[in-house]
């Protein structure tokens, strides 16, 4: 164990971006926009964003935009708020936000806000606080937050607050670390964190740390590297991150790395199985968990990883560039 094998993770991501032929890639083809955001943000956090072809990615991203203004997960698929945020985030990483037709994207997101302040994912009406976070985060990056009804959006999020101080996907939904990140992030971006019971939620969040040092997403579940992000960023936004044991968590994340080629006695997929991070030790790696592992290490101030903003999930220098120019 011991350290973050940066070079290997960079190689893993670059190879994964190019690889489109294995089963995993085909199955996840529809969410490539998310995958690109995860991969590129990880590269930026490791200081290696300059190893990719900016123009290639930018033109692919723009080719996923529909008439409605929304972006799809890949070419040919339908638009959805999930991929609209990822698209904007990718362009932000490359400092190419100026090529966006801001009015068009804003109109798409505004059209998804419902009477009660909630947001639908697309025209088919699925409601979830994940979409509230996405709308608020995306419009904030585009400096158009005032185009939605922020007060109602905040009120809806509050209506999803539970007895344990956490938040669910809809009113009455059980608290889950992913939803908590979305709600706390949305409240952070709208300056409303005093509406969170930080001590109560902070205790619920810090009790996600189990014996192995990893974090789970809700009580009595298994730990998973992706919760290093959801739980950790939430704790940081409410200034309660000192309530977990950081050293133990770092150890857990590093243990989820694939370092050793010895696993690969055969050549098949040997390039890709070298590097990457999995959900828990000895499971298969993927881009999703590689991103969350590295992002988690960033929040834990691990050396060699750039600081990441806990609310916008983008490197701090990218966020500062957006708001302090």
């Amino acid at each position, binding site marked *: 164990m011991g350290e973050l094998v940066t070079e290997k993770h960079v190689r893993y991501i670059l190879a994964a971006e190019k690889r489109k032929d*294995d*089963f995993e890639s*085909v199955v*996840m*083809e*529809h969410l490539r926009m998310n995958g690109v955001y995860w991969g590129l943000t990880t590269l930026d956090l490791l200081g290696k964003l300059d190893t990719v072809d900016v123009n290639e990615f930018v033109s692919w991203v723009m080719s996923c935009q529909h008439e409605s203004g929304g972006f799809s997960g890949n070419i*040919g*698929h*339908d638009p959805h708020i999930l991929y609209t945020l990822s698209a904007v985030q990718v362009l932000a990483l490359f400092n190419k936000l100026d090529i966006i037709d801001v009015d068009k994207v804003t109109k798409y997101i505004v059209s998804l806000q419902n009477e009660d302040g909630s947001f639908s994912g*697309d025209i*088919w009406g699925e409601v979830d606080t994940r979409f509230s976070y996405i709308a608020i985060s995306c419009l*904030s990056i585009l400096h158009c937050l005032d185009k939605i009804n*922020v007060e109602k959006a*905040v009120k809806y999020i*509050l209506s999803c607050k*539970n*007895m*344990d101080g956490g938040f669910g*996907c*809809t009113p009455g*939904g*059980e608290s889950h670390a992913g939803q908590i990140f979305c709600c706390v992030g949305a409240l*952070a*971006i*709208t*300056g*409303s*964190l*005093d*509406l969170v019971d930080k001590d109560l939620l*902070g*205790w619920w969040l810090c*009790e996600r*740390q189990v014996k192995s040092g990893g974090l789970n997403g*809700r*009580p*009595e579940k298994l730990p*998973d590297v992706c919760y290093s992000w959801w739980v950790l960023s939430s704790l*940081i*936004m*409410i200034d309660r991150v*000192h*309530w977990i*044991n950081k050293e133990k968590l770092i150890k857990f994340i590093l243990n989820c790395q*694939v370092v050793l080629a010895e*696993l690969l*006695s*055969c050549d*098949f*997929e040997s390039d890709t199985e070298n590097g990457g991070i*999995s*959900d828990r030790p*000895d499971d*298969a790696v993927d881009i*999703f968990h590689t991103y969350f592992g590295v992002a988690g290490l960033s929040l834990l*101030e691990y050396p060699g990883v750039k600081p990441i*903003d*806990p*609310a916008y999930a983008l490197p701090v220098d990218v966020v500062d560039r957006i708001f*302090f120019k």
Partner: protein
Amino acid sequence: MHGRPRKALEPVDAAAQSAKTEKLRLLQSQFLANHHNRIYSKEALEISVRLLEINPESYTAWNYRKLAVEHLVSQSESNPDTIKSIFDEELKVVESALRQNFKSYGAWHHRKWVLSKGYSSIDNELRLLDRFQKADPRNFHAWNYRRFVCALMKRSDEDELNYTEKMIGTNFSNYSAWHNRSVLLSNLMKREVEGHFPKEKVLEEEYNLVQNALFTDPDDQSGWFYHLWLIDQTVKSDAPVLVSSWPFPGSHITLKGNKCLHDHGSSISYPSLLDTGIIPLILCFNQAVEGIESSTVAVKSELGIVEDLIWKSLSTNSLNTAQVWVTYLNLRNLKLQMSRSYLIEISIGHSEGIMSSSGYHYSRPSEISFKLFVETAFTEPAEDQVGKMISWENDNFQKIEHFQEADFIMSDRIITGNDYIPAISNWCAETIGNEINSFRVLLSESDCKIGKLTLARLLTAYDSISSAHDKGMVHSEEILELYADLLKFDPTHSSYYKDERSLVLLRQITSTRESLLQYCHHDRNSIETNDGYVCLRLQNLSLSRMGSIESLLWVQMLDLGHNELKSIEGLEAMQLLACLNLGHNKIGTFTALGPLRLLKSLKVLNITHNEIGSRSVDTTRYLCSSPLSHTEEFDCDLFESLSGDVSAPSMWEAFLVFKSLNLKQLDITGNAFAGDNKIRSFLVKLLPTLKWLDGEALP
């Protein structure tokens, strides 16, 4: 993506995998072609089914199926049987997709979409849900869908309550069931439904239910948070309540100039108020409220109602709710005569409008009266009047020995909140008492974390409710011992227990006048002239956080040096604060000083020997007003004109925090940034009123 073991592929498997991949790729491209060309033939629909069976996460396919349904329905000539069978087919597709992945958002939403069209039988759904519950009782998709179905069939909350009890009875380790129970009970108690009101009866039954879970397996977290919720429901009042104010009822505020004679009376001087001519009126509630304005809170003197008072919430949230509200009386506008006493009355809640964010009204109209005596005319301090530098050295302070000198702290009546908090019911004290006994029994049988922590919380709750009956915090020692125990027992969460310990300690210190007096000092230099501050010195207490601020609204000079503070959350309520020592603590960033921006009277600040500028992660980034949270504009031009060539990245935080302060004296040595001359001169430019930096007089 989750839970797949890491292993290399054998060549035979590789070939099969390759074929599988090709099949899926073909399916996807065929499907997309049908979707773009709006083909909804039987063959095309079949392709989408095969795709969704393999890959239920392919969201566009679910969209396609909805379009197909709409198309088929429009072709069906409104034949109800045809339409029903179209929707039934969709339900089958969802079921087969869920078999592949019972957590697929797309599949569950499609089912909701179908049901909400109204052509399908709802009865089947509960049976389907039972099967999912058995497979995975924590599947939150299933629980959400259950809530949706119950609403659709208008199933009663009581029936659902029985369902959760059944689930818990089968296996108490079902957090999802406990959570659901809390939602149902909240609704029922709020609606005051027959048989579920008063809440005393409900809570008693719930305590019994959760005790079974907690005592059977204390390490299972399922009941922990439910029990904590029960305690909160027992102790807190639904309606918002005023817990403290400044001035407090019955107090005498005397504003005297520097040169007056020693007054044998027991009033305290307010040098900072004389400087600014502004008197803050502070209201502190037990929960966030909205609606504090001149129509709901009136301030009047014998001269009439004070006009044009604007109440400000000490928070920035979009709903304009806050626990602490402030308004400022401007002496210049009040037109008070010298050397006479005025009775000022604050009337709260005589008209409706003050409400908590959960919708409960402030229900107890009350008055706070205090006397204001202005001995000398307020004048602007002369420009050349430098004044004296404040020293935080021990030698500079002398303990206040006599009670008469300490009337400013407030009488015990006020501290124990009798004026504000309604009498706690016997039931409440009895219930908490019973729980305390139960947990003592648990701890005697099993030395467990949840036992110790819950007992500590119960004792704390008991003390806080009985302090209204003048008993003070009798269990403080035992509570502090429990946290010391927990520090060793559960070292992973040691910082949590440390923070809790700090809160208990501060509650103990502020619980009676006697205990508070131990920490009150006079500033030696000003004893003769009686124009100095009373300083509350809380040094060397290993405090890792602040608390009990509602009992400290009267403080003008606060010494928190030599502790372990990372944040000063809550300090913004201390509107009278003029001098603050945060030296030798663990403050890691400028944004942690955010609360100070709201302190209009703050003149002297010591932040020496902290960790400002040496942390790469800012944990108070979103707790401090800034453009990131749309709570503050960034004056780019001003920043550039003042910063010169100071590196921008971390300096915007210093800029936002310091530009709103009016400090006379600032001490910063011992921080990572303090050695940088460019930053020092940046700060000096930001603070035009600054007279001393690190002990040196500025030109």
